[in-house]
């Protein structure tokens, strides 16, 4: 039996860096080929024979910055995958030709970095596209792909979250809406309502999907599945060890793996489970009856016979709930 595995590939290049983003990235696009050759060596050195690759995710950075030639080369060294294959794209670097190429290499899910449907917000975030370009990109992607996701940011000081237009909502299957953060803390105390149609289910703190369109790749992260990350700053969880590559883009190295203790795993599972609609298995909790009663009494969690599930109110103060339950 082969073990299931998910694969992440990091493309750390952008036309311009955005102030709110803390992923590893640079603007030295002339050195993409140099980076790709290191990346290929890394991928080819990995022994996939024991694994069944369930999902692949090409993230960034801006993966849509790769030209068709570069993209094809990358996919040549990636293992076969019959499941979800996602690529992150920016509205201004998507084209019909690229869409065709994506389909050709097997990509079946497009995640578009829209960020906002408000022009002033896009400008202040430092994005290179406007609202119209974003809408056009979604429409274009829709011609080629069924499974489309968009990223949005809300709770930005002095800006208003704008709900995606109806015609757009009709074309997409998944939305990630992040509260703006700085140093991992939400910038504002406010929590703007997302106003999505009821068929977008909030299945994770910041993720909404139509039924059956939850991100399979991300669910691997959130449910403790194994994944291997390739490229600068990419993280992996394999054989109960967490490890990552350094952030030095053209000379990244794998850093020392850290073995998780059973307590680490338990605390992680509680943290991740609380974020999910499926909740945390009661069996992970130790003597927390009083805390559960209190949290339920304040409407922060609902209790099923087997699970604890955070409510809408609870999702806003998840850290506090975790501190009570872990």
């Amino acid at each position, binding site marked *: 039996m082969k073990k299931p595995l998910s694969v*992440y590939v990091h493309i750390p290049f952008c036309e311009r860096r955005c102030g709110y983003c803390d992923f590893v990235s640079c603007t030295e696009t002339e050195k993409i080929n140099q980076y790709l050759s290191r990346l290929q060596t890394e991928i080819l050195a990995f022994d996939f024979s024991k694994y069944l690759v369930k999902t692949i995710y090409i993230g960034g950075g801006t993966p849509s910055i790769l030209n068709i030639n570069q993209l094809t080369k990358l996919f040549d060294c990636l293992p076969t995958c019959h499941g979800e294959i996602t690529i992150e794209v920016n509205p201004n670097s998507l084209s019909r030709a690229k869409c065709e190429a994506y389909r050709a290499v097997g990509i079946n899910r497009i995640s578009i970095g829209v960020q906002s449907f408000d022009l002033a917000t896009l400008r202040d975030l430092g994005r290179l596209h406007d609202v119209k370009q974003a809408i056009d990109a979604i429409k274009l992607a829709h011609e080629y792909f069924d499974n489309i996701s968009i990223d949005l940011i809300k709770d930005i000081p002095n800006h208003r979250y704008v709900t995606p237009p109806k015609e757009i909502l009709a074309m997409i299957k998944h939305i990630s809406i*992040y*509260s*703006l*953060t700085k140093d*991992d803390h*939400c910038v*504002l*105390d*406010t*929590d703007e309502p997302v106003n999505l149609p009821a068929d977008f289910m909030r299945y994770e*703190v*910041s993720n909404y999907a139509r039924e059956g369109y939850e991100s399979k790749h*991300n669910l691997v*992260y*959130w449910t403790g599945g194994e*994944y291997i*990350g390739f490229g600068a*700053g*990419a*993280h*992996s*969880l394999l054989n109960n060890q*967490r490890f*990552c590559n350094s952030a030095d883009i053209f000379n990244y190295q794998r850093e020392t793996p*850290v073995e998780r203790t059973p307590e*680490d795993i338990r*605390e*992680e599972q509680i*943290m*991740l489970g609380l*974020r999910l609609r499926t909740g945390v298995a009661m069996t992970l909790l130790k003597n927390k009856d009083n805390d559960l009663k*209190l*949290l339920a009494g*304040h409407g*922060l969690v609902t209790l099923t016979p087997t699970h604890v599930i955070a409510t809408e109110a609870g*999702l*806003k*103060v*998840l*850290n*506090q*709930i*975790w*501190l009570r339950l*872990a």
Partner: protein
Amino acid sequence: MKRIRNFCIVAHIDHGKSTLADRLLEVTGTVAKRDMEAQLLDSMDLERERGITIKLTPTRMLYNYKGEEYVLNLIDTPGHVDFTYEVSRSLAACEGAILIVDATQGVEAQTLSNAYLAIDNNLEILPVINKIDLPAADVERVRTEIEQVIGVPSGLAPAISAKNGTNIDQVLEQIIELLPAPVGDENKALKALLFDCYYNNFLGAVCLVRLFDGQVKVGDKIKMLATGKEFEVTEVGYFTPKQTPCAMLSAGDVGYICASIKTVSEIKIGDTISSAENPCEPLPGYKEVLPVVFTGIYPISGDKYGELKDALEKLKLNDASLEFTKETSTALGFGFRVGFLGLLHMEIITERLEREFNLDIITTAPSVSYIVHTNDGRTLNVANPSNLPKAVEIDYYEEPIVSLKMWTPPEYIGALMDLATNKRGVFVDMQHMDNNRTLLNFKIPLNEIVYDFFDRMKSCSHGYASLDYEPAGYQRSDLVKMDILLNGKICDALSLIVHESVAYSKGKALTERLKDIIPRQMFEVPIQAAIGGKIIARETVKALRKDVLAKCYGGDITRKMKLLEKQKAGKKKMRMLGNVEIPSEAFVEILKI
């Protein structure tokens, strides 16, 4: 015995007791100059750090005067008002006292009270004027003040600088010439005053004694007259200031006795030690001290209760005045109600618990001991507000009152009057000692001065005023118990007994303060102050609006866990009261209201 002098040094705090003691040790060659460490007799770190003397330390010095060798036994004493009790203990072991007066400050509140204590104990007073090296020194004025205010002749008082070692030989000369030698009979039955003790892991309790009659040596059977316990002496000796064993102690000597005494509860400070076969009449002893300030001390985490108990027991071995009993708080769990001689004493003990025993503790608001008369005619002593009977059962309260003496230059009289009156002080009288110094007498509830009175007095007199107080009985008073409710539940550890007249303003100030201290939590926390079920003030800690990590992907999980672990570590410093998390400093902060 003619060549023994037993004396102590008394003074107002900071007038130079410990420095003079150091110089005496140096000049008599007891401690070689190269081994001198400033304030040698203050052996606790805390004593050196704070520049105060807490424990008594007796030291034997040898001094050659006019061809004869004299034994000088010095008993250093603490100067702070909280430790008056320790001063009186050392006085009982001496024939004379050096009274140090600061040449720049003159006579202060405790100069006077300590001088009177010494006079009451029939001690010969030897005034010494210190700090003549300072530019502001006015030796002649201070000389006059000593005569006028204290009534002790001071014409011969040596003017010295303990710091620079000026005229120290004059002090030694006068100790020998003017202080009386002890009288006693070596051939009579052993009669020794136990004036202090400390615990040594190898020797057991080390009893500090002054022999009045008889002798004691290793192997003697001794008897503690008050407790009736008998022991066999395993070691006798004196301090140089190192513990130095010797063959025998005789009448007139000051030294120590060890007798395999395992616990300090087997002996009583102030007791008379005599021989087991032939006991003498007990010495009058001295006034037993009662704690005046009480506070609850609880471990922050409940499982440290055992450690806290051990720590208090160890401290008690060295500090006979420390008293504690078990108590339980619904909010804080198991802990102790601890009695102290005063607030400085309390601060020192809590600091030692934290530093020497590495314990994280919560100290509840200090309280004094009230007398409560109930409707059915019972009389209760209550030091813990949560032990009060129900309000409807209480007929009336009595609270402890003290006579407060404040010494001040005349320009601060108004400010000090206001301070004392605001604290429910009743003015008694005012005496002008000289042009620079006025003595204000007040009767004031002890409760009002236990927390920050001293600091306030210092600040409203620019540091010039000094104070002293002594218990002056109990007085009927309109007191009420004020409860603090968190989330609708009474938090017993925050209850206070306050005077009716200030209850409203205090309730308001307290709830406001708590609102600032208690961090936002998952849900709103109402804070209420109530008197007998009636809410008099309310504040609300608003619920946390948002505390969640927005993104969490593969690479983030480790980092997010680190963040959460950090938050978790912060929580450990919090105490859960019911469902509310309170930082431990909240309990101290509310004292500052």
